[in-house]
């Protein structure tokens, strides 16, 4: 179950390059025993059913899913309690290597590349790749029938690789697991190939779609553990073996309607499944239940506190980052225009470097890279620092333009009155430059407010992240999307009008303003 292909590749690459040589931090087994808690990294926001998701979207603690049951069983076997640590799926391995949690388990396929960075437990589940087509597409039943057809899948997944190796198929890669099924139902695709659990939970309940034929291929999910945590790896493997032995694993998978042939073969338990699947049935019932207007309104009301909480995080993160960006931006602009030569070069290099590299990479460096050098920054501080340092480069350019718009003659008039160049800058040049810079600073702040959603890659849950979580768990992209957009708009509004007022006030000395 890999998601968001482009970012995913980047993140894994980063994990490899930066963290391959990560210093040995505290032994996770010791840490777990000392605290009595097994910290488990997963993405409950977009992980989605049936892995980890929210039973009640308005309650962020209501995690359910077959991996929640499995995690609890594992923790029990290890004699500790389970605690979920939220992180985006792409960042699960970097977070593991950084020491944010003891294990990462979230439908992570065991592949050669990943095995270079982390150790994997013995597979706890084996998924096949399931073809899903529209109910009336009787002629499509195997991969061989798909020549010349449009087939959707998740970017970077095993299924994607299978499709690309089959001649004549037009592959369409997605970032979220429900989207391909929606497009299939709307006839934008001819078929979808994805891991069986996803097909069962997103394709099968849709009456317009049907599962075509038996699953093909195989991909194994493993628990990811840091390379040097060999003792923890041994304990987890032993625990998994006991759970398989006692039939507990099978019971969990049957509960969730996921017991399948590949897993049965892997666990050496070929008895066919006849058990009911209550968790799956409940899921389908909730999904297909009738929704009246009033239940919808009540639902939105219950989501609002969560969204507001996220909005508050976005807001204070952005304000703090902007203050940092403004302070550093002024220093950079002044250094570049009036500083001694070496300082000018430093300011120039800073601005160009920061503007020439993606914010995402900068955040990764700050949060997942710096621990390599022994510097560990908590998430919120890293978010403020990352956004602030990045925006400072843009602010510096705004202020530089503003400063340059004030003519050199103003500086000459000031110094010929005996002011030092520092006094001239402070009392004559800067006040005029600020007025010129205000509109672009406001624009930047509003852009920053929206950009701040990027901090979700370093485990911070803000407005966009909350919104994604809610819509992934309710499938209501329209309503929640509009609600979220309204919140962003309302947050930016006071700042835009404040800036207008400030600008007008400061321009009162201009004739044209009256």
């Amino acid at each position: 179950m890999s998601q968001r292909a482009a970012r995913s590749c980047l993140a894994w690459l980063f994990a490899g390059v930066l963290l391959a040589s990560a210093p040995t931090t505290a032994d996770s087994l010791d840490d777990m025993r000392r605290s009595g808690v097994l910290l488990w990294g997963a993405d409950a926001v977009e992980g989605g059913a049936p892995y980890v998701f929210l039973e009640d979207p308005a309650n962020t603690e209501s995690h359910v899913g077959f991996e929640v049951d499995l995690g609890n069983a594992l923790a029990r076997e290890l004699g500790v309690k389970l605690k979920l640590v939220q992180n985006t799926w792409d960042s699960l391995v970097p977070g593991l290597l950084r020491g944010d949690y003891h294990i990462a388990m979230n439908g992570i396929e065991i592949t050669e590349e990943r095995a270079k960075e982390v150790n994997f437990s013995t597979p706890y589940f084996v998924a096949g790749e399931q073809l899903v087509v529209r109910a009336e597409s009787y002629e499509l039943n195997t991969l061989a029938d798909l020549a010349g057809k449009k087939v959707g899948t998740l970017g970077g997944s095993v299924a994607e690789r299978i499709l690309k190796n089959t001649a004549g198929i037009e592959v369409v890669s997605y970032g979220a697991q429900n989207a391909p099924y929606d497009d299939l139902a709307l006839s934008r695709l001819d078929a979808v190939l994805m891991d069986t659990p996803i097909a069962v939970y997103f394709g099968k309940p849709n009456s317009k779609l049907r599962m075509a034929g038996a699953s093909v291929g195989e991909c194994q999910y493993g628990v990811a553990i840091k390379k040097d945590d060999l003792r923890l790896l041994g304990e987890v493997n032993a625990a998994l073996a006991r759970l398989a032995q006692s039939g507990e694993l099978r019971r969990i998978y049957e509960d969730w309607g996921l017991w399948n042939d590949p897993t049965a073969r892997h666990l050496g338990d070929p008895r066919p499944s006849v058990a009911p699947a209550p968790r799956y049935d409940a899921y389908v019932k909730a999904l297909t239940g009738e929704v009246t207007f009033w239940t919808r309104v009540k639902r939105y009301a219950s989501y609002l506190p969560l969204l507001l909480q996220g909005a508050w995080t976005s807001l204070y993160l952005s304000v703090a980052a902007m203050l940092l960006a403004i302070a550093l931006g002024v220093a950079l602009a002044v250094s570049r225009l009036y500083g001694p030569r070496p300082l000018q070069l430093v300011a120039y290099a800073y601005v160009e470097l920061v503007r020439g590299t993606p914010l995402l990479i900068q955040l990764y460096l700050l949060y997942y890279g710096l621990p390599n050098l022994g510097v560990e920054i908590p998430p919120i501080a890293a978010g403020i620092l990352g956004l602030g340092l990045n925006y400072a480069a843009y602010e510096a350019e705004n202020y530089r333009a503003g400063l340059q718009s004030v003519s050199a003659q103003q500086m000459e008039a000031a110094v010929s009155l005996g002011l030092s160049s520092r006094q001239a800058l402070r009392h004559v040049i800067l006040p005029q430059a600020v007025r010129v810079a205000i509109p672009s600073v406001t624009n930047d702040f509003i852009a920053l407010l929206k950009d701040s959603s990027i901090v979700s890659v370093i485990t911070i849950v803000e407005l966009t992240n909350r919104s994604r979580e809610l819509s992934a768990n309710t499938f209501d992209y329209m309503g929640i999307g509009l609600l979220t957009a309204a919140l962003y708009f309302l947050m930016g509004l006071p700042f835009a009008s404040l800036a207008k007022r400030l600008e007008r006030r400061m321009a009162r000395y201009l004739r044209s303003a009256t």
Partner: protein
Amino acid sequence: MSTTAPAGEDTGIAIEGLTKSFGTQRVVDGLSVTIPKGQITVLLGPSGCGKTTLLRCLNGLETFDSGRITIAGVSIERPAHSGRELERRVSEVRQRVGMVFQNFNLFPHLTTLENLSLAPQLVRGTPRERAQARGRELLEMVGLGDKADVYPSFLSGGPMQRVAIARALAMEPQVLLYDEPTSALDPERVDEVVEVLRRLDAEGITQIVVTHEIAFAYEAAEHVVVLERGRILEEGAPAAVLRNPQEERTRVFLRRFLSTFRPG
């Protein structure tokens, strides 16, 4: 500070062997002249002869290459003085020598009164109330007592230049330098500015005025210096230089103005 003559022992302005080049172009060329104290000296000369550059050398806006300037009791010698020493001397000169620009260069974000009181507060540490009281006196003096709280962009050229002069005066300078103070003004606005210069002359300030107003030079100046290619072409009393120039080239230069001005 042995090179700095004590205040009060102000002996006018002495310029000796002043040279300034921009790249390979020598703009001021070994110029020597003495400007009398407490008088109006007018600097004349064809466009590009180095008048502005000379003026800017006098208050350190340009760093000259060689020679010596003694002004307001401070002497600057090049290339002997450089770095921090040069900076220190230039900053002393600037506190005693005011400059008035062709384009006024008032601070647009400050009211006229704030334009006047800013430098005394920052440079001299004058308390705000005293600086503002003095500022009001000076505005009164240039006939703008009612414009204290107005922003410069709401004034027209003549009043702006009078504010600029008052701003320079707020630092109590011994010398005032003017670079074409009236050439950006409407003709009917010129007199009100010239009037201020006359009044200051009565108070004994040394004033150097770069101008193309021959009439002004003739009527108000006590000393006239004609420059050509960075050197002194001719100097002396206005009546002598303007009515009866010794140099043929002065004659040629003045002839261009004869259509508008006939001395005597």
